[in-house]
C-alpha cells in the first residue's frame, strides 16, 4: 500500500486485502490529479458551469441585528446543484473515476443527499450507478430515492444491521470488493480508509478557498470564527481548511447533540464524552461504541449527522485543539432553523442548522467589528418531511392524509 494516511493517531486504511490494489490505484490517481494543475482547473470549471460555484457568501444583517455582536456571514453551499456541498465531492470523484477509466459508481447514503448527488454525477458522466441505503432510510427518505431512480440509479435497500447509514457503507464495500475492476466507490464524507478523508477534504476545500477570499473582499479582514456542522466531517473540513493557516480564526465544529448526553441519544463523537477510539469501516477514529468495540445506535433529528464515526482528520484536530467541538440538540436545531428562515429567508438543512445553533449562542459576545462565517452546507426544502415532522405542522399532516386518500381511491 502506497501510504497509510495517518493524521496523528487517526486514519489509516483498514481494508480487506482484496481492495489493496484498488486503493493503490485510487491513491495513485488521486496523487496524480493533485499534482496536475489542469485537474483542479477542470474541477473548478465543472463546478462553475454545472453547479454554481463560487457559491455566494451572504451577509445576514437581520440575524446580526437580532443577536448583536459580530457580523454574520453565511457560506451558501445550499445553492449547489442538488442542494448541498455533497455536489463538490461527487463531481470531483466523478472526474477521478473518468480518469481511472471506470464505468460504474456506487455510493452509500443516509439522508439521501449524497445518493442524489452521486446519481446526478453518474447521469452527467454516463456511469452506471448503484446506491446503497439502509432500509429504514429508504422508508424515511422516499423523495430522495424517487430522484435517484429518475436519474437512472439503482437504489438498494440494505436490510442488514441497523438498516441505516453505517450498514449502507458496509454494503457498498461488499459491492466494491466484488466489482472493483470497473467500479469506483464514491464515499460521501471525509471518513473511510485513506485516501478518502484527504481526497474528500481536498474536493471540499473549494468551500474554504472561496470563503476566505470572499470574506476578505466583503469584510476586509479574516473572520473571528468559522462554524460548520460535523457529520462525517466533509463540509467542516471544506470550510475549515481555508483557514488552517490563519491561527486567529477559531474553528468550531458542531455535532448532533440529539436528545443530549448518553449513548444512543446523540451522534456527538467529539463534543461529548461517550465516544472512544476504535477502528471500523476501514479507518481509525472516535466511534460511538461499547467496551467490546461494537458500534452503538445513534440519534439525531438530522439524518446526515446521524453517524457513529467522524473524520479522522477532525479527530486529530480535536485532539490537538485546532478545532473546538460543540453539540447542538435537536430542539435547538429546529429553533435555529426556524429563526433563520424567518429572519433571512434562508432555509438551512437541519444538518447545517447545527452550526447555526452554536454561532447564535456565541455571536453576541463578539465585537461588532468582527465577522463570523457559518457554513450552510445544504438546504432544507428537500427534507420537508423531516422538517414538517420536526416542527409538527398539523396542516402538513392533513395534506398527507388527504393525498393518501386520493392514492388509495385510484389504487
Amino acid at each position, binding site marked *: *500500500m502506497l501510504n*497509510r494516511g495517518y493524521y496523528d493517531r487517526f486514519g*489509516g*486504511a*483498514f*481494508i*480487506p*486485502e*482484496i*481492495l*489493496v*490494489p*484498488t486503493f493503490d490505484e485510487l491513491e495513485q490517481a488521486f496523487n496524480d490529479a493533485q499534482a496536475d494543475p489542469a485537474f483542479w482547473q477542470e474541477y473548478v470549471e465543472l463546478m462553475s458551469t454545472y453547479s454554481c460555484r463560487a457559491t455566494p457568501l451572504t451577509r445576514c444583517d437581520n440575524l446580526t441585528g437580532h443577536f448583536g455582536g459580530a457580523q454574520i456571514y453565511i457560506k451558501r453551499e445550499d445553492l449547489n446543484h442538488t442542494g448541498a456541498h455533497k455536489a463538490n465531492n461527487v463531481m470531483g470523484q466523478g472526474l477521478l473515476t473518468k480518469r481511472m477509466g471506470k464505468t460504474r459508481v456506487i455510493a452509500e447514503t443516509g439522508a439521501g443527499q449524497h445518493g442524489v448527488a452521486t446519481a446526478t454525477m453518474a447521469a452527467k458522466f454516463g456511469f452506471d450507478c448503484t446506491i446503497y441505503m439502509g432500509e429504514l432510510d429508504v422508508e424515511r427518505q422516499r423523495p430522495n430515492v424517487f430522484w435517484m431512480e429518475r436519474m437512472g440509479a439503482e437504489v438498494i435497500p440494505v436490510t*442488514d*444491521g441497523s438498516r441505516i447509514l*453505517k450498514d449502507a457503507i*458496509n454494503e457498498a*464495500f*461488499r459491492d466494491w*470488493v*466484488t*466489482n*472493483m475492476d470497473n467500479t469506483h466507490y464514491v464515499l460521501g464524507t471525509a471518513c473511510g480508509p485513506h485516501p478518502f478523508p484527504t481526497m474528500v477534504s481536498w474536493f471540499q476545500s473549494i468551500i474554504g478557498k472561496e470563503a476566505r477570499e470572499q470574506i476578505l473582499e466583503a469584510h476586509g479582514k479574516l473572520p473571528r470564527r468559522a462554524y460548520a456542522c460535523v457529520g462525517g466531517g466533509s463540509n467542516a473540513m471544506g470550510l475549515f481548511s481555508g483557514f488552517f493557516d490563519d491561527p486567529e480564526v477559531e474553528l468550531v465544529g458542531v455535532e448532533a447533540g440529539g436528545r443530549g448526553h448518553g449513548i444512543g441519544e446523540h451522534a456527538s463523537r467529539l463534543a461529548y464524552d461517550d465516544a*472512544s*477510539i*476504535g*477502528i*471500523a*469501516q*476501514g479507518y481509525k477514529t472516535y*466511534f460511538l*461504541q461499547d*467496551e*467490546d*468495540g*461494537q*458500534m452503538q445506535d445513534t440519534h439525531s433529528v438530522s439524518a446526515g449527522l446521524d453517524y457513529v464515526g467522524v473524520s479522522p482528520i477532525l479527530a486529530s484536530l480535536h485532539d490537538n485543539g485546532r478545532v473546538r467541538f460543540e453539540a447542538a440538540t435537536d430542539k435547538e436545531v429546529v429553533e435555529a432553523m426556524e429563526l433563520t428562515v424567518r429572519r433571512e429567508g434562508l432555509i438551512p438543512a437541519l444538518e447545517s442548522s447545527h452550526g447555526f445553533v452554536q454561532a447564535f449562542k456565541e455571536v453576541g459576545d463578539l465585537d461588532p467589528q468582527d465577522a463570523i462565517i457559518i457554513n450552510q452546507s445544504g438546504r432544507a426544502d428537500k427534507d420537508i418531511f423531516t422538517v414538517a415532522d420536526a416542527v409538527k405542522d398539523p396542516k402538513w399532516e392533513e395534506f398527507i392524509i388527504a393525498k393518501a386518500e386520493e392514492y388509495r381511491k385510484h389504487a
Partner: protein
Amino acid sequence: MPENKLEQYIRQRREHKDLLLMTHIVLGYPSFDDSLRVVESMVEAGVDLMELQIPFSEPMADGPVILKANSDALSHGARVEKSFELAEQIVQRFDIPFVFMTYYNILFRHGVEKFVDEMAAIGIQGAIIPDLPPEEGEEYLAAMQRHDMAPIHIFTPNSSDERMQLLSERSAGMIYAVARKGVTGKETTFSDDLGDYLARCRAATSLPLALGFGVKSHDDLDFIRGKADIAVVGSETIRVLERDGVDGVAPFIEALQA
C-alpha cells in the same frame, strides 16, 4: 524462523490426508450452547481445523449469511468475554487446532497485546483479521510472534506476486487464499482460472495454503485437491445449520469428504 505450531500440525496431518477441511462458526450463533454442539458435530465428522468468529457489528468482508449470524449473535448478547470463555471450553474439549476470525476493532478495544495474550492463554493457535493489512498490524504481528501464534493473511486473485510475497512473510501457520473477488458466501466458479491463480499462490508462499469463499460441495473439494492443502467451508455450514439444525451439520461434513 522455526516452524509454527499450526503449520506443523497441518503438515503432519497432510501426510495422511491429501486435503484438509477447515470449517467456520460464529461464536454465539445460533446460541452459545448450539455453537458448542456444532463444533462437536464437526470434529466428530472429521474436520481438521476450525475458525471461530467473534461477532462484530460491522463485518465488512462478510456476505449476508455470516453477516446475519454476526448480528443475531450480538443481539442475543454475544460479548467478547463470553466468546473467549466458549473458545476456551472448545479448545479444551476438542483436539484440533482452532483459530479466531474477527475484525480488528475487537482486538483494538480489548488491547491488542492483551487480546493476543489471552488467545495464547486459552490455546487458540492463530487468527484471521480481514480488515487488518500487515501495514496496520505491527503491534498485532509482534504479539502473535511472541506467542508463536499464526497470523493468517489473505491472498486474493487481485494480489500481485510481490504482494503475496509480503503477505507470506508476515504470516505464519498458513495462507488463506480467497477463491474469488467479493464477500463470503456467494457462488464461486471452480474453473481453470482458479487453478492458475492457485498455482500463483503456491509459487508465492511456502506456507500451507487454504482455499475459501464459496466452497460447499464434494465436487469443489475434488477440484481443490492437489492445488491447495486445506479447503475452507464457511457460509455453507451456517446455511445447513439454518436449514437442517445442528443435527444436519455432521451428515453435511461427512458428505463433503466422502
